[in-house]
């Protein structure tokens, strides 16, 4: 596929690895903040092949993982209602709430539907005027413009049966929170490319200045991730800290202006609790007051929710980059994708799930001589 396969080319990957090898003289720790990048790294074994001095720490880039438990529980309560068709992205269906998940609600008769695009929820609302249709609007800034369109169209088309349960999270405050943490070992950040396609890169310059850390806007294919890592290492080795764009084919400095206008209209910034981390000030979006009439939290007064987190789950430490998934005592035992304790094991983007799914052998450079010889045949 054009603009995709080229960025997985093994020969070019080898060149990037070699360049990285030649650049590094000291240990460095780099954090990627986007679950999609975590997926690429672990799926392709990029961290296996990097020089031992380069450590990749997986950040809280999985909006599914960080959706507050209270929000999941609210979603479950709303979805269980007989008059509701609850629409959600696929990843959210297995995120554990205090007692069950959306799959569980569906098995008890709840009308829970997976949608690919937020506009599918609009269509469902149009087709089901007698039902309340609720769209679970989660994600980082990348997904927000699409989600905002639901609120916009609900209003424009007079769809009084449509509402949104919103829990958006923002990347720059998360980077700030991690970089300011006294236990942070992160020397440089890979910023999420598609978030920047929407928001532009300006928000990251103040972070570079404040924390004196390189931030490199990075794409998602193997070569993109390798190049983002490479550029970060070059800066670190040369003692520089700058904002760099390693994904220029999809990111312009000013970002997507029509999307930003819609976001400014539909959402307003709010303090947001990140599951496993805690509250990060001004790190989330909720529906603006002008859109209160399509706010599902108001429309379905679900009231106060008591939350119960598993005490075994160390998602929080994983999300903050303090723990590798396989260092968690529950990893692979009490906690597996089949029976997840926390959100990082549920979401296919979560660090724990990525590690589990692509877990590599004890010997990172396992030789597969016969299989490798097959390539030559």
């Amino acid at each position, binding site marked *: 596929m054009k603009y995709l396969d080229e960025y997985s080319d093994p020969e070019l990957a080898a060149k990037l690895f070699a360049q990285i090898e030649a650049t590094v003289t000291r240990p460095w720790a780099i954090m990627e903040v986007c679950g999609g990048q975590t997926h690429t790294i672990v799926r392709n*074994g*990029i961290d296996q092949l990097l020089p031992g001095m380069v450590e990749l720490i997986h950040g809280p880039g999985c909006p599914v993982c960080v959706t507050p438990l209270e929000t999941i529980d609210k979603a479950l309560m709303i979805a269980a209602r007989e008059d509701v068709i609850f629409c959600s992205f696929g990843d959210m269906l297995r995120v554990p709430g205090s007692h069950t998940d959306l799959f569980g609600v569906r098995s008890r008769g709840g009308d829970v539907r997976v949608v690919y695009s937020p506009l599918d929820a609009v269509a469902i609302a149009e087709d089901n005027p007698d039902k309340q249709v609720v769209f679970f609007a989660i994600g980082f800034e990348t997904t927000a413009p699409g989600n905002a369109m639901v609120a916009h169209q609900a209003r424009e088309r007079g769809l009084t049966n449509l509402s949104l349960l919103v829990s958006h999270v923002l990347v720059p405050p998360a980077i700030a929170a991690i970089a300011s943490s006294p236990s942070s070992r992160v020397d440089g950040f890979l910023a999420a490319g598609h978030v920047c396609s929407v928001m532009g890169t300006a928000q990251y310059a103040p972070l570079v200045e404040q924390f004196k850390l390189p931030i490199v806007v990075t794409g998602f294919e193997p070569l993109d991730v390798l190049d983002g890592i490479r550029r970060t290492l070059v800066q670190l080795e040369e003692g520089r800290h700058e904002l760099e764009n390693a994904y220029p084919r999809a990111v312009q400095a000013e970002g997507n202006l029509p999307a930003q206008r819609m976001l400014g209209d539909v959402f307003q910034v709010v303090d947001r609790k990140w599951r496993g981390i805690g509250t990060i000030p001004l790190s989330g979006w909720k529906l603006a007051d002008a859109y209160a009439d399509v706010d599902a939290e108001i429309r379905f007064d679900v009231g106060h929710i008591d939350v119960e987190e598993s005490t075994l789950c160390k998602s929080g430490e994983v999300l903050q980059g303090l723990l590798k998934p396989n260092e968690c005592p529950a990893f692979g035992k009490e906690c597996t994708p089949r029976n997840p304790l926390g959100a990082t094991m549920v979401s296919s983007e979560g660090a724990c799930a990525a590690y589990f799914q692509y877990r590599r052998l004890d010997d990172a450079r396992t030789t*597969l001589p016969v299989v490798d010889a097959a390539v030559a045949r």
Partner: protein
Amino acid sequence: MSEAIDVEAWSCPVPLRDHERILSGHGGGGKLSAELVDHLFLPAFGEAARGATPTDAATLLIGGARLAFSTDSYVVQPLFFPGGNIGDLAVNGTVNDVAMSGAVPVALSTAFVLEEGLELSVLGTIAETMGRAAVAAGVQLATGDTKVVDTGAGDGLTITTAGIGLIPDGVELAPQRISVGDRIILSGPIGAHGVAVMSVREGISFGTDIVSDSAPLAGLVATMLAADPDHGLHCLRDATRGGMAASLCELAATAQVGIAYQERLVPVPDSVRSACQFLGLDPIHVANEGRMVAFVAPGSADAVLEAMRAHPMGAEAVVIGEVVDDHPGMVVARTGIGATRVVDMPLGEQLPRIC
């Protein structure tokens, strides 16, 4: 990375306590399905299922003849998809189950559960399809049954087929015969069926030219056996729900051997690859209905491969890997950029990834 991972430690001791009810994932062909069989059905059946082989056709010794016997239920939404309909699956799926034990399939039974309100024209088209598929596969539709359930209770139509076939003398295909050093042959490109069905499924539908690969494999199997007088062919498995990955993982676990393959050697049609990228799915987890993996002793692999390539159903057959004595029970792949990756069974339903 600390100590080596113990595969046995992964499984939750009594997983069914997690959910009191059946979830859609239990039908996905992945871990949840396997757990339902291992932790509910087999213990409940008790003595009656002592020799049961849940994932393979059963081999029954009757009056000196060895019969392969298998059954499957077909519930697919939507009933019609690019390249076929539920009728094709109901015939070819069970024919293939039987063929995987090396048997020549002889007859199928067909049981229908019809939802009240199903259009007769729809049922007629499906039945005609089954007749054609049976002729193409060389089997008789020998007996059957029909029941009707209330509207809303039946997903339109469920078809259950059971098949029997005769295993030729000297042929023994079973996971227990898989040996270290066996070459692993994949009969053709993967992912077409699953993508074809998804493309017309409400909620994630998309336009594509991909058609299902549903087809009978019995002819290909017979060709392979004919080219293998020394019985170097050890085991066959059709790669259906759960994709190629599920087949390899199940066999690695059953035979307690390690499986290693090269990702780059696995043929995936460009259109399937694109669809999987778009949906965020891995082609090795996507269902097929006309593909199989074969485990062959190294000395016989070339002859079997050549025979496969001469047959229309095996024209693109390729060796993708080997059975190794490392990491028994685990499947490991060499990734495109040269790292290693452990391949696992998909969990339950294949949901499109948004992130």
